[in-house]
């Protein structure tokens, strides 16, 4: 029998050198990526402004100034006013609240459904997997754009439905990604080792599978949000999404497009806001992907 070393076992953890976890490595790599950091900061800024809009907006949402009418940017109205004399900056801020909210909430819905679905299919495998993924395949083949347009026309003015409809489209890809992650992890030897130790499936999923599957999920979630926001803007543009009196960037852009010849700022500023947000999200997502070393760079 080997004798114990003289140092007290109680000091085992204290005396040990700290390890560098993969998350920490990834964070370091991310920090070095200037574009991603820029995107992240910009995004944070937009989110903070969106949350604090009721207190930050220079004018009230409904305040009209019919005498003024549409006017270009000035000291009083940094981004100009629309045909009703409403301050564009205020409109853009309130529109941002809605657009960002839709983006995050719908993505959260898609995430929840997709990740659960994919994880079960990937882990259980066999017939359950075959059936679950066949359903995904069929749904995937449905021309969703057409359906959403229909749904919106039919059930219209319901923001909740908008969330659900958009989420319903996006969860499919999430499910596929999660499933392929879980499947490949399941075949990894450390999962086999966990099985041979006698761990329960729940413990294996919790401790071994999910932490290692998080990477692609995080990346994909970050890249789904812009997709969702585009979808909402698209629908709103067609008149099928957010309805007045609420506003969103998509809606603002569609109004701006109508009068762009005379009042180009009505198109440019909401457009800029949307494009900047999408840029930030995409750069952040790409940066996350590179940092987490997920397969398939920039595709």
């Amino acid at each position, binding site marked *: 029998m080997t004798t114990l070393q003289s140092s007290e076992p109680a000091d085992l953890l204290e005396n040990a050198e700290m390890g560098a976890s993969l998350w920490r490595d990834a964070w370091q790599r991310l920090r070095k990526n200037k574009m991603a950091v820029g995107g992240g900061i910009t995004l944070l800024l937009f989110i903070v402004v969106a949350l604090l809009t009721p207190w930050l907006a220079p004018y009230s949402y409904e305040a009209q100034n019919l005498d003024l009418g549409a006017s270009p940017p000035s000291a009083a109205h940094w981004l100009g006013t629309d045909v009703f004399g409403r301050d564009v900056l205020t409109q853009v801020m309130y529109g941002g609240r809605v657009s960002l909210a839709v983006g995050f909430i719908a993505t959260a819905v898609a995430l929840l459904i997709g990740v659960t679905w994919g994880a079960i299919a990937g882990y259980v495998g066999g017939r359950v997997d075959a059936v679950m993924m066949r359903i995904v395949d069929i749904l995937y083949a449905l021309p969703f*754009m057409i359906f959403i347009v*229909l749904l919106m026309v039919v059930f219209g003015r319901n923001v909740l439905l908008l969330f659900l409809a958009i989420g319903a489209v996006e969860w499919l890809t999430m499910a596929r990604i999660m499933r392929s992650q879980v499947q490949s992890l399941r075949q990894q030897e450390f999962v086999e080792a966990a099985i041979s130790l006698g761990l329960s499936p729940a413990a294996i999923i919790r401790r071994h599978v999910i932490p290692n599957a998080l990477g692609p999920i995080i990346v994909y979630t970050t890249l789904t949000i812009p997709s969702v926001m585009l979808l909402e803007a698209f629908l709103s543009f067609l008149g099928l999404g957010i309805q007045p009196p609420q506003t969103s960037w998509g809606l603002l852009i*569609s109004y701006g497009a109508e009068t762009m010849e005379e009042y180009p700022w009505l198109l440019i500023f909401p457009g800029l806001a949307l494009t900047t947000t999408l*840029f930030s999200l995409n750069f952040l997502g790409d940066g996350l992907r590179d940092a987490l070393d997920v397969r398939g760079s*920039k*595709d």
Partner: protein
Amino acid sequence: MLRFIISRLLQAIPVIFIVITATFFLVRAAPGGPFDAEKVVLPEVKRALEAQYKLDLPLHEQYFAYLSDLAQGELGPSFKYPGRSVNEILFSGLPVTAELGFYALLIALIIGVTAGVLASLKPNTRQDYLPMSLAMIGFCMPSFLLGPLLVLVFGIYLEWLPISGWGSIPGDKILPSITLGAAYAAYVARLSRAGMLEILSQDYIRTARAKGLPEWQVVGKHALRGGLIPVIAFLGPAFAGLLAGSFVVETIFQIPGLGRFYVQAAFNRDYTMILGTTVFLSSLIVLFNLISDVAAAWLNPRLRSQLSGGGQ
């Protein structure tokens, strides 16, 4: 290979079926009928109209009647435009949308593949960052933003290009095609860059170089073949996206295509028009997905022999 195609076709049938059924019942479930928006109609006239259009039958009977019409290729009369059938309207708009889509796709492929491949040859250099940043812009600027902006700059300020119509003034096809194709060019650029990077890191590229092949052959003959498969596989979903994008582009540029008809039909609750267009477009999308799946599989010799029955 044939078995693969047939099995995919068979899989497509339930999809189309679901589309038809779901659309049918969805549309019927909407509040408001096709004639409600019109000027006030006398009850008897309304009843006569409904009888003519079979709207007075119970729902499931309407359904089966529709299915049998469908089987004969009859998409029914339009509610909105009396005297014209859905088939007629569809086929008048189809060539326009098809041409728009074709040009957009061409732009997307040519620009996208060139940019992506060039970027992949010198990753993390200017040759990479420049095209990919431009691609990012195409990504982040939706067509309904890009379109009006292009119109503003090229149509109104610079007055270089016409801003509406299709085929009536020379050059009026340019802006719409670019608007529609831009986002896809961006996506194709990313796909081809990623695909090429993946292939270029493979061992067999090193073998090709070790044989003394000139670099253009290494890239053109050895790398492109595998690197572009993701792009081919993307064509199916791209088609569906282009169709959806045409809704917006045709609206902005006043183009008399399918997309615009579809949106209008949706607003007008023109049942048969909505149904007919949905069925038609969906079938097209399913068909295109099938073609691109088969093409992508066929291009991979390993999959090709597996699917031809009995690969090693």
